[in-house]
């Protein structure tokens, strides 16, 4: 134990965090200016995004090099694992806020507006009845149709579930040292992930152009797009990370018992999976 302590790797000096701060700030200042209608917004945002990407490449690059040169002992590895787990937990809580909004609307606010709260309905929204899906008594955004659960969403569920399986197969292969199948299973996972995204994009197009279902479609549109949208963003990040892991596997990184980065991404992927199941059940099915 004390052995591990003495060898805990403490890096000295780091430039990437400050680059990250500058990048993030530039990004959000640009975005804020854009939202305020300034024409300088977009370019500033692009610069910020560029800096953030640079920071990510740089920072991850350093970590990968250190990892490959064996600087990280078991205890460092464990720190990374704990760190990743709690990061994922924080992401769960982020989604919880939006699921909370969905439940609140469905269980409380929509019924109240629609008559469960007698005076509210009688004096302010007379004649409107609670229903779900809905764009509210003001019919914000106009009439719309919803996405059936058993079309693309069901296919997407299958895709993501199978990608959870393939990534697990890849993990097994890695643990057994079978590098060939490892890369193949990872490739399958990546393909499944990007296919999911493609279908999701298609679905959004369909919703916007044919169903008149938009972010502006009242509370239904709001919760639908924010939940699926943030999920989609996470799938995108996950798929990119999986691609990088795959490239690293091809380059020969990771060993059968030392592959934190691989596992971190796999955990992340499973998390994205589970969120989707929640979405499929609570947004599409019920």
């Amino acid at each position: 134990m004390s052995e591990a302590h003495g060898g805990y790797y403490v890096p000295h000096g780091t430039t990437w965090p400050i680059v990250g701060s500058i990048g993030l700030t530039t990004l959000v200042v640009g975005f804020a200016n854009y939202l305020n209608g300034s024409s300088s917004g977009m370019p500033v945002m692009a610069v910020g995004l560029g800096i953030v990407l640079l920071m990510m490449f740089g920072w991850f690059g350093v970590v990968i090099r250190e990892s490959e040169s064996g600087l990280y002992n078991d205890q460092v590895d464990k720190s990374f694992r704990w760190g990743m787990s709690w990061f994922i937990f924080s992401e769960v809580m982020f989604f919880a806020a939006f699921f909370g909004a969905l439940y609140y609307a469905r269980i409380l606010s929509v019924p109240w507006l629609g008559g469960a709260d007698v005076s509210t309905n009688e004096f302010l929204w007379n004649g409107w009845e609670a229903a779900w899906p809905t764009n509210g008594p003001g019919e914000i955004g106009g009439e719309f149709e919803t996405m059936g659960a058993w079309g693309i969403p069901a296919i997407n569920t299958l895709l993501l579930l199978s990608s959870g399986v393939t990534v697990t197969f890849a993990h097994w292969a890695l643990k057994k040292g079978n590098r060939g199948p490892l890369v193949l299973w990872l490739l399958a996972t990546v393909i499944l992930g990007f296919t999911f995204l493609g279908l999701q994009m298609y679905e959004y197009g369909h919703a916007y152009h044919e169903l008149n279902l938009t972010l502006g479609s009242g509370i239904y549109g709001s919760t639908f797009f924010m939940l699926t949208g943030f999920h989609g963003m996470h799938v995108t990040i996950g798929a990119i990370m999986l691609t990088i892991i795959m490239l690293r596997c091809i380059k020969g990184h990771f060993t059968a018992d030392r592959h934190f980065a691989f596992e971190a991404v796999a955990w992340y992927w499973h998390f994205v999976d589970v969120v989707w199941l929640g979405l499929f059940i609570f947004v599409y099915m019920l």
Partner: protein
Amino acid sequence: MLVAKAKQTLVAVLGGAMSMHAATVSAEYGLNLPRGVTPISRDAYDMHMLVFWVCVAIAVVVFGAMFISIVRHRKSKGVKPAQFHESTAVEIVWTIVPFLILVGMAIPATKALVAMEDTSNSDLSIKVTGYQWKWGYDYIDDGISFVSSLSTPKEQIYDQQSKGENYLLEVDNPLVVPVNKKVRLLVTANDVIHSWWVPELGMKKDAIPGFINEMWIKVEEEGTYRGQCAELCGKDHGFMPIVVVAKNDEDYGKWLMAQKTASDAEAAAAERDWSMQELMERGEKTYTTYCAACHQGNGEGVPGAFPALKGGKITTGPSSEHLNLVINGKAGTAMAAFGGQLSDVDLAAVVTYERNAWGNNTGDMVQPSEVKAAR
């Protein structure tokens, strides 16, 4: 009583020294919750005093023990420290005893709360609507409605005039209720969240746009009761008071009649055509009460927050668009839909006024009948 005594001493010691400014105004400072004039306010007061004294008692015990320890158990007195540091028995005791005390408080609190939330069997319902920054009252059963806004002049606020007795707590049209009747208030808002509160009536309810909250009051003494909006609602949050006048049945009946007559006259006025001068006079009044808070008396607005109407694109453009904007407001901004608040006459007058005041000399006139058609 202790409180009263503490009050005297405190005021003598502290207030006396620094009342150089306050001396000019009559000041009747309270130290405690008012007991109020409704069953609810008395329940609240009793609960307040109960919990207060429980806390005082616990404080005496806890701080007393601590104080004794601080005095006695000092190193400077040569005390050798004891080494005890655990006792499951006392931990259990001081978990259970406070719990029981809390149960003792929760029971009357529950009873009081259940009574407060029971709005059934009311004699009268009044809809209360919060606007930035005034209150609208609709007597649902009697069909009268009016708006109530601050009547303290600006000069007093900016220290150019000495402050009156009811500084900031006075309105043009108070809410009038009959005594000893259970009055149900249906509280809502038109723009942002406000909160309707009169301390002596014992209840506060938030006014939420799009929802109605119910509360009830039963004022048991004739008189005038003052309160304020209690939820931050923008720049003039501190300037939207509430005044309730409780009248006996007879006076209330008279008041009601007078209101009805006035509202009939207003309805008749909407039917005829108005002259430019009439419209401008009426419009200036309406503008000062409803619009000047944001767009300023001189029509120049506040850069960045409220647009200038003097020489504005809308106020000098087509009058139908102008009228439309005032009736429907602009969603997502502080510019509210005034169609619901103002009568046809007021709307016609204010639009006419804006189109001709401050050198906007468009010469346009808008008649009440046009407003009716535009709604």
